[in-house]
């Protein structure tokens, strides 16, 4: 069967080449954006709550970022890596206690009401700060939002808050939702959480559970002549191999977030009419991290942690598990971050002999069976790669005499075991680096985080030095000084290894050649797609 379709495909593509060669002068049209069409996209998860102001996660953004917009979006070229969306300009005060946003004029909500500074004030104070998973950290000192004018919002902070942090947080944390929809009743139970209303280029049309989400063009969008597409349909395809087949059958035109398994990319890149795009995810770098429970006396010893770091062959992980679609990590900030990354940290080369020596030094001599001690290893179930790395880590640890027992859980049970019950010795987690270490990276090392906060330091690690750097950086207003503090943070973390960074990876999109303007910003998959178009 597949043989037959392959032949048919090659015949077709041969025919297409022939046709194209006769029509060479007109081939230029492919570069010109076209209007209309329906873009069908693979969706591998089906979030129920689609309010990005409450749940700032990529699964939610993937769909709702087209409907609900943030104040600014990440950009490859723009100043500070940003391009304006609902805010046209932003400025921080000298004392770090206020930030002034000038808002875009002439923007209306999908229900026709005008967008004003009151909506921004409401979203910030009632949702981002108290309810949002990330906003709780970044906006914790936000005291008030003044609205001197319909199009000016002034954020007032109780304590000096670095403007650099607020800036870096704009794309992911500042989705603005309409006050008039949310002001009555409980925000968490508002029906607009499942059928979002925003200012974006697409309106939410419907969600058929288990089948699809459908978004429709917003004809009153503020962006001139945008959006290009008439419709976006998210086809729910939880099975990963289904996405590749659907692309080949031309049922869908785009599979983002590595919906096509990495192992299939090589084959699919050779399919005519499909392209593999590795750009467009720089702003959402995932980190493959070994989380450590420092309550275990063996793991509380830094020599043991260093031994584990030496036992991991990072190149093998990148080459075999990620098939090259990842970068080895040197520390808690990924190499692709331009602002904060430093290579000036201790390196842990793959060296089994050294790892064994360190363990001997720490006093954990191998027994008669070659084993030093037993551990419980919990790989996070969210990605194929985290699970495979769990399998690899078990073998890597066996090579240095640590007997790791794998415990597989489903998502909910894994969350509970690691982040609430602390019932693990080692865990494999995929935290996300979100453009600023203060958003979701420092909490991996900071002490005093309440139980149950996911992707945070739940291993009972405590270092006065690291806590001090984090606290100092949180109130350092000067961008340069703040960046230096985070470089120091990276150094300290890699020295003491509260957790071990192994690799950093972003995602891959596979798209039909007909889809234009993809991957044109570092958060493309979770941006608004207003200029994405489809050749007819």
């Amino acid at each position: 069967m597949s043989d037959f379709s392959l032949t048919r495909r090659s015949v077709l593509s041969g025919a297409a080449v022939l046709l194209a060669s006769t029509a060479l002068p007109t081939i230029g049209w492919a570069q010109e954006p076209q209007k209309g069409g329906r873009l069908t996209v693979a969706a591998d998860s089906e979030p129920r709550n689609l309010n990005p102001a409450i749940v700032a996660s990529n699964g939610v953004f993937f769909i709702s970022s087209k409907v609900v917009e943030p104040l600014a979006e990440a950009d490859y070229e723009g100043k500070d890596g940003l391009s304006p969306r609902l805010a046209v300009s932003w400025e921080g005060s000298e004392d770090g206690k206020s930030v002034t946003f000038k808002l875009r004029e002439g923007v209306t909500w999908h229900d026709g009401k005008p967008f004003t500074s009151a909506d921004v004030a409401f979203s910030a104070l009632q949702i981002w700060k108290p309810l949002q998973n990330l906003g709780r950290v970044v906006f914790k000192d936000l005291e008030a939002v003044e609205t001197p004018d319909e199009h000016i919002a002034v954020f007032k902070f109780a304590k000096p808050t670095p403007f650099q942090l607020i800036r870096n947080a704009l794309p992911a944390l500042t989705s603005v939702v309409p006050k008039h929809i949310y002001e009555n009743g409980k925000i968490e139970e508002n029906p607009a959480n499942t059928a979002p209303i925003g200012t974006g280029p697409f309106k939410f049309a419907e969600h058929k559970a288990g089948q699809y989400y459908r978004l429709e063009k917003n004809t009153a969008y503020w962006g001139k002549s945008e959006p290009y597409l008439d419709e976006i349909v998210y086809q729910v395809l939880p099975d990963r191999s289904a996405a590749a087949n659907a692309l080949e059958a031309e049922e869908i035109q785009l599979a983002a977030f590595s919906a096509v398994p990495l192992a299939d990319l090589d084959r699919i890149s050779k399919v005519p009419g499909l392209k593999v795009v590795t750009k467009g995810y720089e702003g959402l770098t995932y980190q493959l991290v070994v989380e450590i429970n420092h309550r275990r006396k063996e793991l509380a010893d830094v020599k043991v942690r260093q031994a584990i770091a030496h036992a991991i062959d990072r190149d093998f992980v990148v080459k075999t598990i990620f098939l090259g679609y990842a970068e080895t990590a040197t520390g808690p900030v990924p190499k692709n971050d331009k602002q904060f990354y430093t290579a000036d940290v201790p390196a842990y080369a793959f060296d089994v002999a050294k790892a064994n020596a360190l363990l001997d030094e720490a006093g954990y001599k191998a027994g008669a069976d070659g084993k030093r001690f037993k551990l419980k290893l919990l790989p996070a179930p969210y990605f194929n790669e985290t699970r495979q790395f769990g399998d690899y880590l078990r073998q890597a640890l066996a090579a240095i005499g640590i007997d790791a027992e794998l415990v597989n859980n489903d998502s909910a049970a894994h969350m509970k075991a690691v982040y609430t019950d602390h019932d693990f010795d080692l865990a494999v987690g995929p935290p996300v680096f979100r453009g600023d270490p203060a958003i979701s990276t420092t909490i991996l090392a900071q002490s005093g985080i309440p139980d149950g906060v996911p992707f945070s330091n739940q291993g009972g690690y405590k270092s006065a030095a690291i806590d001090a750097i984090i606290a100092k950086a949180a109130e350092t207003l000067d961008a340069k000084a703040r960046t230096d503090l985070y470089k120091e943070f990276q150094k300290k973390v890699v020295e003491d290894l509260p957790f071990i960074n192994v690799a950093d990876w972003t995602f891959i999109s596979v798209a039909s050649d007909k889809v234009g303007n993809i991957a044109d910003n570092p958060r493309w998959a979770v941006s608004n797609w207003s200029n994405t178009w489809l050749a007819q």
Partner: protein
Amino acid sequence: MRRLVQIPEALVGLGILAVLVVMALAAPMLFPGDPLAIKGAPLLPPFQEWSLPLGTDRLGRDVLAELFHGARTSLAVGLAAAAAAIAVGAVIGTLAGFAGGILDETLMRITDAFQTVPSFLLALAFVSVVGPSLTVVVIAIALSAWTGPARVARAEVLSIRERDFVAGARVIGMHPLEIALREVLPNALPPVLALSSVIVASAILIEAALSFLGLGDPNRVTWGGMIAEGRTVLRSAPFLSIVPGIALVLTVLGVYLAGEGVVEGTAVRKGLS
């Protein structure tokens, strides 16, 4: 036994099972150490390198070693689950059939309740609540498989308990429980044992399905787990799913054929006598 050999199905079935048992027993000798250890370059196709005849999986683990060690898991789970199911089922069936009355009613309604739940769902629910490990998987499978033996045992006991030797045992003053377990149960066992091949085969399949869904014991090689691992690279390295798939099919086929043969063999013997 001699007649058994004359039945072709039985011969084939027993042959397959013998190979399987040899594989399972020889695995630690032929492939010492952890079968999940990384042995070579990842995704090596079969028949390329002599040391790795069936190639390697995504992490570079030896597929042949995994296959051999997987046979151990499959057989262990199949036999343990069937033994547990038959033991529990036979005892419950015997007690229900021998005691009669309220105890019989209660036990049989419980059996009904278990029978109404699809066996795979029950196993799935049990493993996902308790957490995957080999013992849990065995218990989960036995939990859904004991009802068949219980019903058969009860039916058999109902006829046996009216026999003279039972009455005799009563007369000499044996405790009813002793009569049930020592006199009645052994006589009710043969038809129950005939169910074992079906239970072993379905236990192997359920274990494979659980592993396929990621609910197997991650520290052991299982064929179902191997198929699941291979599924992500089905298009580029189909052998990773096909090899354990064939092993699974052959095993289940072997168990069925051998069971069929045994039943037929005993039927022939009865017919002749």
